[in-house]
């Protein structure tokens, strides 16, 4: 057995899962508060990567940035810019596409969400075209370190280890995603705005009677969810250095699945679902079934939903948001 390869696969899964989880949070937060499956969310993530492309080309960054101070400054700028812009885009979408339909039958906002998804894709198509775009990878994608785990044998069962390679960009993405998820939990559980979000999710009318401004609270939920998708968009460009107008579909579908798998409406569940789907994908590749990875992911989703329709963690009604 090769412990090095397994460790490498775990690290691969962590990186992919971090991005799925960041996007899945937006799906689950919106569903938690207005019970809408926001199909445009994957495209918000995609637009976030294009916003980053625009920012980098405007300030003239074309290559890897090697000076650590400049790099940290640039990363803060990239994330702040993409998160704020996408947060505002999310608020606008809610204001003009979903709020007028808040009391309409459930199907109407769902179809609207699909429409918004197409609108976002077409805007990028008009502005940039249909090609892949190279986004400068400001963190050197090859920089990192490698290590070997100790080899040992237990009762004739030999465990070897090949070289495990870790790149800084992968470390950065995982640390960043975990930090954002922790910050979100703290925000939702410990602040007044977070309490307003939770109470709106449980009972909109009662919350309103208690003095919660429903419109502001829902807008805030969209802002946070879309900002996280914007952050995932930046992370995507840091990792792959490529983006395309229909990237949001694939990533969005996976992340939506992650949210459902974890228990839609449950933020912890979304994070767990994201990592779980990534690990399923990675290990189906390890077994030589990369081409089946999607089928395996969805088979597991169906099985989970058959036996536990609310997902792995279920919708923790009292705490959803």
């Amino acid at each position, binding site marked *: 057995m090769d412990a090095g*390869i397994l460790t490498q696969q775990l690290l*691969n899964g962590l990186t992919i899962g971090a991005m799925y989880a960041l996007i899945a949070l937006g799906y689950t937060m919106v569903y938690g508060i207005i019970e809408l499956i926001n199909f445009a969310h994957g495209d918000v993530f995609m637009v976030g990567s294009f916003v980053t492309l625009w920012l980098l080309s405007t300030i003239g960054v074309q290559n890897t940035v090697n000076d650590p101070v400049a790099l940290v400054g640039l990363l803060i700028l990239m994330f702040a810019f993409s998160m704020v812009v996408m947060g505002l885009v999310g608020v606008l979408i809610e204001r003009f596409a979903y709020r007028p339909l808040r009391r309409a039958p459930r199907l109407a906002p769902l179809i609207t969400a699909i429409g918004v998804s197409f609108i976002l894709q077409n805007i990028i198509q008009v502005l940039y075209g*249909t090609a892949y775009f190279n986004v400068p990878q400001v963190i050197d994608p*090859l920089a990192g370190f490698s290590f070997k785990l100790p080899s040992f044998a237990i009762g004739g069962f030999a465990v070897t280890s*090949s070289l495990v390679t870790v790149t800084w960009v992968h470390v950065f993405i995982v640390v960043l995603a975990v930090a954002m998820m922790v910050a979100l939990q703290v925000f939702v559980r410990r602040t007044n705005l977070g309490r307003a979000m939770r109470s709106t999710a449980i009972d909109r009318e009662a919350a309103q009677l208690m003095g919660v401004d429903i419109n502001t609270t829902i807008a805030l939920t969209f802002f946070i969810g879309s900002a996280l998708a914007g952050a995932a968009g930046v992370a995507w460009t840091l990792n792959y250095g490529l983006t395309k107008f229909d990237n949001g*579909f694939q990533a969005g579908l996976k992340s939506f699945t992650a949210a459902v798998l974890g228990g839609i409406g449950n933020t912890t569940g979304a994070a767990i679902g994201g990592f779980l789907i990534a690990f399923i994908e990675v290990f189906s*590749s390890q077994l030589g079934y990369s081409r089946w990875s999607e089928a395996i992911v969805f088979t597991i989703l169906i099985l989970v939903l058959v036996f536990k329709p609310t997902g792995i963690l279920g919708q923790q009604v009292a705490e959803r948001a």
Partner: protein
Amino acid sequence: MKPRPIALLAVVAIVASACSSAASTPSPAGNTPAPGSSATPAPAGNTTVTLGVDLPLSGAETPNGQPTLNGVQLAVAENPVPGYTIKVVAKDDALNGVHDPQTGATNIGQFVNDSSVFGVVGPFNSNVAQAEIPVSNAAGLLQCSPANTNPGLTKGAAALQLRSTHPDQIAYVRVATTDDIQGQAGADIAYNVVGARTAYIVDDTETYGKGLADQFETTFKALGGTVVGHDGVGKSGQSDFTALLTAAKAKNPQFVYFGGVTATGGGLLRKQMAQLGMANIPFGGGDGISDGSAATANSFLNVAGPAGDPSTYMTVAAVSLIPDKAKFDADYKAKYGSEAGAYSASGYACTQILLQALKAVGPDRAKVRAYVTGQTPAPTFNTVLGNITFDANGDTSQHIISDYKFDPTTKDWAFFEQKDFTSGVTTTAPPAAAAPSAS
């Protein structure tokens, strides 16, 4: 004063009858000679005929289609056919930046309905050809592909299915040799040039990619090598190959072969190999990753970035050492200001074949098709690629593959040898002056 309706009607009637009598005047340019005119069928003056072109011309596919289209236009400019003005109408078969079979079939349908089209150059991608061949076969409109390499398009039961309307009337020919030859060439590079004895194969599960990868596997095993794994990219738009590559790394392959195109992940695959510490493993692919230098946006080398390592190889089902290479390259550069693409000369050759048919039998589609594929013995076409004869399936008599390697100084593919698989393997190195080692 207001014009009276009756008077107006009369004016309209007069004008209309004048028009219709003008229109009914026999025009000599039509198919039937005007009564009383001389019996020579040669059209008086120039007849405008249309040469259809179907290639992927937008998005990530631009580096594939555009240089090929340039080759077509160069051929039309350099090979005038007396009595005809040739109009080139190019249609794009890329949808959302990726070649699309349905779009290709629609394009061919439009050419079929346009009676001025006497022949079509294209398509570029094998799965597009799968959708187009039934349409062109039913209509008897001759298509010449400069780049399709999938064997099933012309040979075997799959091909008979494609041309089921007129199985004995071939309306599709190609000047590129097939993937069964290209896959052999890839395996030959891995085994003989690199010296690898173990290989890991990845394909993109498309018609082209899987066919190529399967042939590589067969030949590599026949040569004595071991295939330690063969996996596929399961979905379009996949960006992360780290898991697949880590699984490959566990098998310690001496060579990684990719059957597919840049748009389905070739460039990212090579780049992520470097991220996983696998940059030193030689990598090879077919003509699907032949799309320009690292400076060309969206090309394989551009996406692979700094990881487009010296040990990256690529085969092209095209003739690089064409008989009159210096002249072709100079003409191309003079007209377009850039170097010719891997399939520019092939586009040129397809055009020459169609123009030769036009010159011999005129623009009638049935005659053009019969001239190129319906004669016994088959005619030999003198093209920029050399002399070409098509066999009973429409495949070229040239079984030639060009081998390229990444050159880190120019950041571009460098041609290093050409192999002829017609009878055994004959390797030809380029003249010393053209070798990349020249300072």
